Structures are given as C-alpha cells and as structure tokens.
C-alpha cells in the first residue's frame, strides 16, 4: 500500500474558529514559519458567521460587533499573514509519533495529505448536546433541531424553521435563538430551563426574553416530543429539588418546532484518539499552564479545551497556545518541572488549566456550581482570597496567578466560599 503524501510543518492548527484563527495569526506574527490551518467548513470563522447578532469582541476591540463582523476581522488578520489555509479539510486521524512529530491525516477535495507537525494547536470547537442526550423521549419527527442548527438554518440557508417554537435550555445560544425566531415572526411559547436559574448571561435574559415577553419556565423540563411527520406538541413538566419531573404538573404545549439548547460538549475525539488525557469535568483535555495537553507540543484552545462564554476567552486561549507552540519550537520543548495539579474544591465545577508549575503567570478559568452572592474565591495554600460580588454558572470566573506564587506553593486547591 502506498503512503500518503506528507507535508512537514512547524505548526498545524486544527479548526478555523475564533481560537484557531487567533492561534494561527499569533504564531505567524511571532515568526513561526510553516503555519497551516485546516478546517472542515467551506468558510472560516467557525460558528461566528452564523451569529448575525451583536455581542462579540467588545472586551477585545472596544466595539460591539456581530459574529460575522468579528469573523471577518479575524479572517482578514490571518489572510494578511503567511498562513497556509485548507478549508473543507477533514482531519480523519491524529497521531503522536514522537516528541517533535505529530501527524494528522487530512482529507480534502484536492486530495488526502498527511501533515507531520512539530506542534499542533487543537481548536476543533464543540458540538451541541442532542435531544437524546437531554433525555427527551417520544417520537422523532422533523422540527427538532439544535439551537446552532436553527441559527445556521435561518442565517446561512434562509430557512424559516417553524411557526411556533419551544426552546429547551436557557443558555446563551438558546436565549439568542429565541429572540432571533421572534424577530422572524415565530411565536416562541416558552424557554424551558431545568435549573432554578437561567443558564445564560443576564444581559441575554433581559435583551432576548424580557424585551420580547418570551416566558421563561425555570425548574421545568421538556419530557417528550409528540407528532408523526412533524412536531405537533411537546410535554413539559415542573421538576422537584432533585430535578425529577413532577408527574402532576405535566402539560402539553402545541408547537411545530423544538429547539434543543442544552449545552455544548468539547470535540476531543481526535485528541483522545491520539492519546491525550481528557478531564471528565470539562470534557476537554487536561492541560498545563502552556495549554499543552498530555501530548508534548499539542496545545488546546477554545471550546475544544473548555466551553467558553465569551469569544474573547477562546481567542486569548488560541493566542496563548500559539505563544506556547512558538516557545516549544524555539526551545525544543519545555523544561521538566514538578507539576501541581490544581484541586477543585467546593462551589466549583472545574478549573483550567489543571496543571501548574510556575513558569509563567497564568490565567485560570473557573466555573461555579451554582449562583450565589458575595462569595470569595479561595486558594488556601497561597493565602489568596478574591471577593466576588456574584457568581453564576453561566459566567466564567477568571483569576490570574503570579508565577512566583505558584512556585512557592506545595499544593494548590481552589474553592468558592
């Protein structure tokens, strides 16, 4: 059997969304020579081009932009640099050959290649959880779509997906889609949220639901879909403290569209296939303060690393991953160290990065388990305490640690009290 044509590169970026674009651009700006970016879609930008609503880039550029505008900005930046871009390029397999060589087999309409890369930034994004993963039973007719799919349907393909909708899940995507549907004349009968608090940013609750009088049903669950060819109704119920449906509260809401917005899952199959360690808490890879996975020279960024609430977080992760890749190439890797695993204490779901050594100042990304007011973020080993006015699971908490602080700590625990 013949082997694949192989191309040697310094940095291979997998994924052309905000994290991948930022990584490719930053690496090229730093002077990394052969930078290649591969993406499955026909156009770059990841999901940004299907986001015609504003709310992007303010923290970074001081200007509120639509997803399309931000995508254009990022694409322009990459286009002006020496980055080799392959669109419609599907990475079939990734492999770890050696410390200085990772491979990716890629299928494109122009043929199949193998890239042999010194470093990889893995920024393949996330996928949406489906109605099956949300435990919704019943029939399986047309008219059950994920929120991202509805967005793409309306704003890329120009399809009106229904006339009367129920949205399952009140994360940002669900809220924004509820508004988008309303603007198009679709009656959104309810946004149904399992938890007693909304899943998305407060500004989106106000701007997407309250401004349009869309009912938000907290502590409710979509149980089942009814309808043969097309959705005819959904069954919704209240839940008790254990999030179990209370049978006596089941009601039927007639509609022809059920939008599933019940969260994202990092796409890590290729990474896991290459042997990277996955953190069950984030669903993404375990990384150190260089955003390096357990495969040396393979870095992760964006939603493939951890589900982010702000695009700026994804972009800064991409840039940090690129800087790390640059250092890896220049220095032939990182020095050995005694890595400290950050232990997640009470009140928190996860922390990223999971491993710290104190080579550099590090920004931690954390998510609270439940909303609360006037709390403190505590690292007992560093006697560090940060007051937080309010925390909500929807909003990522960030915290920067000084390298010297990390260096002097024996162990590290982080919790919310």
């Amino acid at each position, binding site marked *: 059997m013949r082997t694949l044509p192989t191309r040697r590169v310094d940095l291979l970026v997998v994924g052309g969304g905000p994290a991948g674009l930022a990584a490719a651009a930053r690496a090229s700006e730093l002077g990394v020579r052969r930078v290649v970016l591969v993406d499955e879609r026909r156009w770059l930008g990841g999901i940004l081009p299907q986001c015609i609503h504003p709310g992007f880039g303010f923290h970074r550029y001081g200007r509120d932009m639509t997803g399309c505008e931000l995508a254009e900005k990022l694409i322009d930046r990459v286009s002006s640099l020496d980055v080799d871009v392959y669109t419609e390029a599907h990475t079939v397999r990734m492999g770890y050959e050696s410390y200085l060589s990772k491979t990716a087999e890629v299928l494109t309409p*122009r*043929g199949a290649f193998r890239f042999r890369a010194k470093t990889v930034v893995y920024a393949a994004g996330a*996928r949406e959880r489906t109605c099956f993963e949300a435990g919704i039973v019943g029939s399986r007719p047309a*008219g059950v779509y994920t929120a991202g799919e509805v967005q793409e*349907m309306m704003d*890329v393909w120009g399809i009106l997906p229904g006339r009367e909708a129920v949205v399952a899940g009140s994360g940002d995507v669900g809220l924004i889609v509820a508004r988008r549907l309303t603007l*198009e004349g679709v009656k959104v009968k309810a946004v149904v949220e399992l938890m007693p608090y909304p899943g998305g940013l407060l500004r989106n609750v106000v701007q997407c639901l309250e401004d349009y009088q869309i009912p938000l049903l907290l502590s409710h669950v979509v149980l089942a879909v*009814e309808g043969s060819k097309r959705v005819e109704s959904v069954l919704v119920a209240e839940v008790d403290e254990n999030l179990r449906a209370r049978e006596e509260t089941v009601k039927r809401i007639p509609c022809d569209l059920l939008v599933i917005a019940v969260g994202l899952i990092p796409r890590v199959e290729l990474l896991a296939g290459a042997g990277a360690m996955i953190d069950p808490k984030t669903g993404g890879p375990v990384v150190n303060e260089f955003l390096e996975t357990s495969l040396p020279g393979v870095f992760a960024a964006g939603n493939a690393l951890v589900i982010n609430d702000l695009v700026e977080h994804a972009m800064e992760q991409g840039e940090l991953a690129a800087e790390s890749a640059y250092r890896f190439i220049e220095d032939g890797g990182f020095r050995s160290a005694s890595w400290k695993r950050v232990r997640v204490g009470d009140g928190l779901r996860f922390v990223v990065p999971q491993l710290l050594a104190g080579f550099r100042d590090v920004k931690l990304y954390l998510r609270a388990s439940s909303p609360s007011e006037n709390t403190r973020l505590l690292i007992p080993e560093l006697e560090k305490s940060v007051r937080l006015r309010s925390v909500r699971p929807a909003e990522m908490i960030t915290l920067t640690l000084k390298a010297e602080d990390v260096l002097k700590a024996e162990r590290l625990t982080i919790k919310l009290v």
Partner: protein
Amino acid sequence: MLDRVVVVGAGVVGLSIARVLSALEGLEVVVVEKEADVGWGASKANTGIIHSGYDDDPVKYPNRARLAVKGNRLWTTWAEQLSIPVDWCGSLVLARSLEDRRVLRKLLARGIRNGVPALRILDGEEVRALEPMVSEDVVEALWSPTAGVLSPYEATVALAENCVENGVKILTETLVKGVRVKGGSVEGVETSRGFIGARWVVNAAGLYADEIARMAGVSDYTITPRRGEYLVFDKDAGPKPSRILFPSPTPVSKGVVVETTVAGNLMIGPNAVDLPRDAKEETYTTKEGLAYVWREASKLVKKLPGKREVIRVFSGLRPQPSGGDFIVRVLEEPEGFVEAAGMRSPGLAAAPAVALEILRLMRLNGLDHGFKKRWKAERRAGLRIMGLGWDMLEKTVPRNPSYGRVVCWCEGVTEGEVVDAIRRGAKTIDGVKFRTRAGMGRCQGAFCRLRIAAILARELGKPIWSITVKGTGSELGVGDVKSLLEGEDVAD
C-alpha cells in the same frame, strides 16, 4: 388479464419477494409503498439480527421454525450478491439460573429439531473466555455460530436497488386504498395514485397486512403492533461484545439483547410492549421502556458504558399476528391473493426463505413463467470513502473531488456518497441517512443535516426549506426567512 404482480409493502419481506419474482420472464413486478422510501416500517427499526433458528417451536409455529433456518442460510448468499455488510458473529444465549439452564436445553433440542447447525452449550468459564464482558452471574450459554448481524435498512435498500436493476417498479408515497376483486379473483389495487391492474397481489404490508387482507375480503387474522425500544451508544463507547448476547427467552420475547451493530455501535434493546391494534404509527420511546431496557441489559454484562454515551434512542414496531405464526400462503379465494404477513421476529432472518416459499406456492397455483436468461443477482454498493485505503483515495478523489469533501464529520461521509445515494433513489434526509450513515453519529445530524439538505435541494431542484426529513409533511422548515427580494430563490 395483465401478467403483473403488485407487491404491497417495500419492506425487507416485500422486496425479497419482488427480487425473487423479478427473475421470472414476462412478469411485471410493481411494488407499492405508502412511505417516501423503502424499509421505513418494521424493517427499519429492529436488532438487525439474522437469527440462527433455534427459537421457534416447530409444532406451534412451523413457518417460523422452518423459514428462519432456511433464511439464515440464504442470507449468506444474498448478502454477498447484494454487497450487504454482514457480521456472522454468532450468538450466545446466556443462562443465569437453574431455570435458565433448563431453557437452554430446550432451545438446544429445538435447534437440533429445526436443523440449526453447530449449536453447543458452553459453561460459564468458556463464555467469559469468549466474551470477557459477560456478567459473572452467567453460568452457561447456548453458542450459536450461524447467527449474524446486518444493517436492516441497508439490506432493504440493497434489495430495492437490485429489484430496480431487474426491472421492478417501486412506487413510493403510494397508499393502497382497496384491493379490487371480481368474480372471486383479484384484479388489482386502488391506490392514491390510481388503479393498478394485476393478476397477483402479494400482501407484504407489515403492520398493515390485516387491513390489506380485509380489503380483499380476507379476515381470519389481525396484526397488532408490539413496540420495542432501543438505545444506541457512541462508537467509541465500550466494551462491546464480539457476539450477540441474548438473555434466556421468555414466552413473549427473545428479551433485551446486547450487541454490536455492523457499523460498530454498542446497541441494547428491545423491550416488548403490546399496543392496541390501531396504534400502528406509535413508534415513540418512553422513560419507563428505556429504563427497563437498561436494567435488563445490565444483567447480561458486567458494566454498560455511562448513560452519557447514549447517542440515540428509538423504537420500532414488530407486526404480531393473531395466530403467532408467519402467514405465508396463496389464497383460493380471492384467487391471486398472496400473503406474507405477520412477519414478527425472526422475519428479517426468514425474508429470503419466505420469498422462495411464496414463489413455490405461486407456482403451485398457476404462476407458470420461466426464468429470465439475464437476471442480475449482483448489486454493487456505493463507495464508502472511510472504508477505503489511502491508495484508493488517491485514485478516487482527483477524479471526483466531491469524494474528498466530508459533509458528515462524525461518520466521515462525503458529498460524493450523498450524491450517489440521491442518484440511487434517496429523496429525503432520512433516505440519505439510511444509505450513507450521514447523521447517525454522535451529533445526530446537527452538523450535517443542512449540508445534506442543500445537496438534496441542488440535485432535486427544490428550495432547501422544502426538503423533507421523511417524506411529505416533514419538511425541514415552513418556508424562507423573510426576504426583501420577494419571489427570489434565497435558498440557493
């Protein structure tokens, strides 16, 4: 009289019969199907198991007992001729109690009587040596090496393609409204697309066979739907058994099975819930049903993957005939009315044998056509890019770049495969899915559904919103998003 046979129902049984009849000279075969595609009734949603044939009591259910064993053997040839991927993996019926062990011995005796080859009872250690994931409770198992699994919808599509190549007409979205009988003989069927005259009418209408029979004045049986629910796990989730794992059967059902599908997904199910006779479209899943399946499957293996690894749940209806046995017959009254009905399990295994039996019975009743000189036994499957070696890819992609354009990321299905499926007859998103697996992966189509719809829209020359998931009434959307360019096609 026309020399035409109308087969009612394009399921695995109807199409097997059509395939066999298509080998005859001078006989026109027309298959009518109410759904938008073939195999969308009972054929679509089942375990996909080609049972080896020890289950059925030859005294109580002679047709089931005889035709399953024969059908199993025929599938080895048919699957090869039709390029249907099969895994002849064999099956284990697991015994966990003394009572179960007695059942195994009964099955063994029955298997011997039915003519099933190579059956053997294994002790617990032998079982776990073969399948390390089997529960420690298991004390014995009946090992049946001739059982296999295939994808039932791929099989149905393969049969349909082979039928068409041999001149069979398949009319989809065609509902039979009546069977015309005159002077004690059938004359044809009234359909939603008009009357189709025929000398023979073969009733292979699955769940609706009793209703078709009544239209012909035959009312000696009823069909009730028996629902079975299933859970499918991510391809990466395991451990997966190499062989089909059955529990010891009960009088109602073969029980909840743990198996690895031909595509490589762990799958568990089904339960068995008898529905009212008119509930023939109620293929919904229930919390209780799925919980039951989970509990029963957990008894067979040491550990199932986490619930988070479940990527899809579905249910299917099996047609349960009132007498229990398959109804395979040519009636004297009305003359020309042929039945292959009540195809409950092991209907999939039996299908080819049922088809040959129908031919034999029709011949006894006056069908006197000889065999065609030129009949195509073989059917070529479409390209599966992810199954090709890189050297084959190097030849294929430059010739047709659409085979290098992956549209379904989870299953690695390319645009070329989708276009091929459409050219072979897929008109809907589900039609593409069942032919190519696009949309069957972990994201369940959220990434690819629209791109598949766009290809369908292009190939069929229709606006994208009007592309259906599963036929008329299941359009993707309700129209175009408001447009300033009224009347312009914004879908393109």
